[in-house]
């Protein structure tokens, strides 16, 4: 049997042939399932896109395919009064929020990963507890604090300022990563005369780049997506709205006209998706870091 198989590689033994056929059927099965799943994930985007480019009249019908392509819908949305302000506000909230979160959270995460001190486990447990806390739990006193005492309602500052005092999720994720950096590196730097802070900036931060990138992305997305925060603090003042909050008013202004609403939806989704393509690796590493390396 084996001899014939070796001497004539073209004619396969029946066993090898079945094995090959099973592998082929397996390939077909797996990829058919994958295509079906891909349809479920991708088709909503396709329908949003097609509807966003329909004429006003056609958007009221059950048609799936536009008769004519109305690219100007995107411009109409873009030029809607307020839309550009929401963009600026969102960028301010997400940009400044992310920068402050990194500045405040890195030293705390470093202390939790490196220093031995009494109460460290209590600190860590409080970090995890606040990470899991629904923001609504403390919103009543927080609103009274920002609105009645500091007179900052109608702005995004009540959402940005707390990020200068750490974000629990970022602290946790950074700590998980910093634990994996060997202590020897820091010790060597200290022997060379570096202080603890210098060692953090010079040695640890460059090594922690992937985790910092992941935290920055998560925080940026969190701010971009936040609906509850702007609803509480900014709803009274449209000049302070963000995209996520303002998007909803779009549907109100255009009633049943789905084309402009879907065009606005596309414009809110697009930046996040573009950012993802640029930073895909950092992002997926971050998700894995939170889940698996717990």
């Amino acid at each position: 049997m084996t001899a014939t198989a070796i001497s004539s590689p073209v004619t396969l033994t029946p066993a090898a042939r079945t094995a090959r056929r099973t592998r082929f059927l397996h390939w077909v099965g797996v990829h058919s399932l994958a295509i079906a799943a891909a349809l479920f994930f991708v088709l909503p985007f396709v329908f949003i896109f097609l509807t966003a480019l329909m004429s006003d009249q056609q958007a009221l019908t059950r048609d799936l395919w536009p008769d004519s392509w109305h690219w100007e819908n995107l411009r109409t949305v873009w030029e809607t009064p307020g839309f550009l302000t929401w963009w600026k506000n969102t960028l301010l909230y997400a940009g400044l929020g992310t920068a402050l979160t990194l500045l405040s959270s890195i030293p705390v995460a470093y202390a939790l990963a490196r220093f031995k001190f009494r109460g460290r486990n209590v600190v860590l447990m409080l970090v995890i507890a606040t990470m899991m806390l629904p923001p609504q739990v403390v919103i009543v006193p927080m609103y009274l604090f920002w609105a009645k005492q500091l007179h900052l309602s109608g702005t995004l500052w009540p959402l940005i300022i707390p990020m200068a005092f750490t974000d629990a999720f970022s602290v946790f994720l950074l700590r998980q990563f910093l634990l994996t950096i060997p202590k020897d590196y820091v010790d060597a730097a200290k022997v060379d005369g570096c202080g603890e802070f210098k060692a953090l900036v010079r040695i640890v931060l460059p090594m922690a780049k992937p985790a910092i990138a992941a935290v920055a992305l998560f925080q940026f997305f969190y701010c971009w997506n936040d609906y509850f925060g702007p609803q509480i603090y900014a709803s009274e003042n449209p000049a302070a709205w963000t995209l996520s909050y303002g998007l909803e008013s779009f549907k109100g202004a255009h009633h049943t006209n789905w084309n402009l609403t879907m065009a606005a939806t596309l414009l809110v989704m697009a930046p996040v998706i573009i950012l993802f393509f640029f930073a895909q690796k950092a992002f997926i590493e971050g998700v894995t870091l939170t889940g698996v390396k717990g």
Partner: protein
Amino acid sequence: MTTLRQKHRRETARTLAFLSPWLIGVSVFFLYPLVSTVYFSFMKYDGFTPPTWTGLKNWQYVFTDYPFFWPALRNTLWLVVVMVTLRVLFGLGIGLLITKVKTGAGFFRTAFYLPYLAPPVAATMAFAFLLNPGTGPVNNILGSIGLPQPGWFNDPSWSKPALTMLALWGIGDLMVIFMASLLDVPQEQYEAASLDGAGAWQRFRFVTLPNISPIVLFAVVTGVIQTMQYYTQPLVAGKVASGVIGGAGQQFEPGYPEKSTLTLPQLVYHLGFQRFDTGGASVIALVLFALAMVFTVFLMRSMTERSAA
């Protein structure tokens, strides 16, 4: 001796310096408002006239007279049982599928992951359009192949299934976590099982599952905690489907249709910011806090067990 004590003192000062942003943050934005919420739960306060003591009245009101409380709790239970379970099963299934795909793996991974990134408000509005009973593409397609066309976000018995579909669309986070843990399963164990004559199902049951069970538990518990925070999607879906949106002055009563999309976080907003009942909102906030903490403790336990093992 003194030098040792000095060294110790210096180290304490250094630790405090590094922790200072967090110490301020946790005091001002967590501990103080938490204590304050407990205080307000015993006070009658509308935000304008000074608060007055009412004892347990707010608690009594929420548990016996507030018509939204029990429906919200029932919905939360439904979401925990159905949505969390389906998300874990679907996430595991998609994770398994992506580890088996040989051709076009990069394309499929991106396609499966992208919806997770769609901002919740945008994704919810998109689904409100896709599933709208009048002109939505989904009912359009269902109708053309002769299937029933549900009312989705406009029908109290279909609104939570519709939200579940939206949650399954954004499965990307779980997919990545499951994918990573599936790739971590030692290959030798599969080979050994195959040599013992194990079929595909037996390999999954006796090799894959035991290896990934900590991740399954992690996914279930974080799913439950996320359900406690479930706010934007049900609220926006209700608003869009009911047609009451936007503009100051227009008040939306959450839960459309017929309280079927109420969740606990929405009640904090409804009582505290629409009815100016600070006391009642504080009671709901504390119930929410207790529920979230029970599952967080559970999560921490399972995590420490995992790192100990």
